[in-house]
């Protein structure tokens, strides 16, 4: 099953919030994660746990979101553990490797930061349909139109990319199956053959893209698109819950800042 984004089809308060507020929350949390000290880390972890409870998302689902990035997190941890400055630990197995206690602590912190960023982003995609994210980004960029930022074109591009992502995944699958059916691309092939196969696939997908792009551009134009602002089925409007969310967000940011100054 192809799942471009992990949208959760549930009706929670977070689903109904204005997507702009949620994007703002992602920024606040990300900034908090980067600037966090120990107190901030506790506060942020608690906030993320609260959101998970609100969404009724269990630890296994969260782990699944983070899992693809685990090798990277592990690498970051090891880099910190080995190369951060500090007194080397005198444990039998690790002696002489240059691993320091400070390094381990820093590595854990960096791993936590990374996991938090991933979780935060997952919460956004779990509660917000891709089209809403695109609409929100368009509205956020809208004031920049005067500076020549083509906000509608950017949003249109993003939305077409999201629309065709699953189509491409299916196409890749088809090409791979077709090759396998003709006896190519098994796991026993050498690196060279696999590389050639990957190159062929890339060329095929790319050619398909160019063919599709021309037709798509015509269709978009024929349907009256000319980069002008357009209306959508869901109006973005700040309502009561959004205001409450904004206040919560402001308090949270204030708490983090206070923790940073006095903590």
């Amino acid at each position, binding site marked *: 099953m192809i799942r471009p984004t992990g949208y959760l089809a549930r009706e929670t308060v977070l689903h109904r919030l204005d997507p702009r507020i949620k994007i703002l929350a992602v920024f606040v949390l990300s900034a908090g994660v980067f600037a966090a000290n120990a107190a901030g880390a506790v506060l942020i972890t608690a906030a993320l746990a609260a959101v998970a409870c609100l969404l009724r998302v269990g630890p296994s689902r969260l782990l699944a979101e983070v899992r693809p990035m685990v090798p990277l997190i592990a690498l970051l941890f090891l880099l910190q553990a080995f190369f951060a400055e500090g007194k080397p630990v005198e444990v039998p197995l690790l002696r002489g490797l240059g691993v320091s206690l400070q390094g381990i602590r820093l590595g854990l912190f960096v791993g936590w930061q990374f996991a938090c960023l991933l979780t935060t982003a997952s919460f956004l995609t779990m509660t917000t349909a891709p*089209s809403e994210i695109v609409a929100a980004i368009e509205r956020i960029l809208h004031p920049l139109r005067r500076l020549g930022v083509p906000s509608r074109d950017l949003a249109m591009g993003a939305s077409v990319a999201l629309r065709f992502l699953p189509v491409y995944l299916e196409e890749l699958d088809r090409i791979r199956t077709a090759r396998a059916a003709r006896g190519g691309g098994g796991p026993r092939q050498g690196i060279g053959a696999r590389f050639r196969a990957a190159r062929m696939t890339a060329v095929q997908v790319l050619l398909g893209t160019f063919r599709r792009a021309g037709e*798509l551009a*015509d269709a978009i134009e024929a349907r*009256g698109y000319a980069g002008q602002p357009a*209306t959508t089925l869901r109006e973005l409007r700040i309502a009561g819950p959004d205001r409450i969310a904004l206040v919560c967000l402001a308090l949270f940011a204030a708490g983090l800042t206070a923790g940073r100054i006095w903590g």
Partner: protein
Amino acid sequence: MIVVDRVTFAYETAGAPALREASLTIREGEYVGLIGANGCGKTTLIRQLNALLLPAEGSVTVDGLDTRDRAAVAEIRRRVGMSFQNPEHQIVGMTVEEDVAFGPGNMGLPTPELRRRVDEALAAVGIAALAGRLPHTLSGGEKRLVTIAGVIATDPRYIAFDEPSAYLDPAARRRVLALIRSLNRERGIGIVHVAHDAREIVHADRVAVMEAGAIRCEGSPRDVLTDREMLRGLGLDAPPAVEIIERLREAGVGVKGGALTLKEAAAEVAAHIRSVAPGGGAEER
């Protein structure tokens, strides 16, 4: 009224012109069938109708608006909807209803009106149940219906269909063809229906045949589509009803020509059998 007046057009990449002094008129509420072999310029011609392509020579006007007038292009595209051959490549929304809202949204309609238009278009096409679906999960027939709903939602005066039955199984094909007819009859939308298969346009008000970038002939379906030799010369098949009647006549059976549908052909054959059977109006077995 859409008037294509002696339009000549060549693609930049190709030497030979794709259209050579092609002329065609589509009146309001009229159903025009356009038939021709591959590469004869049908698609190029209908792309002229909504200013996707502009004539090198000659002119195209939609209700008096010239397609070369840049200021008129937005209005022309409101009036002339277009359904392309491959539905996959014209769905841009991430969900069905968002896609249907794309055209009217570009017109800047307020959200409640947009919602009304989308719901109405989905219901008219009979796919209200698909509103929230993701495009890549739809069948070919459903994708075609989505694109038609997207065109209806903009409330056009004319719609050009480029081989609307391509990629469809027989049931989906029948459904789409019936839908196009009802758009013409019930809403009075002018239709240009590009087809490979003469069967699909036997009910048109008028049929035009294209050859090498020009209109070879046009007239009522009964005049044009029963000319089996002419169609064959262009690499096209006459409708099956015409084929049956002509073969019977070749075999020396004295049936009357002129039937376009299988129903009409059967009636002709039945009438002939009755007329030659002993006792005149004997019951058929």
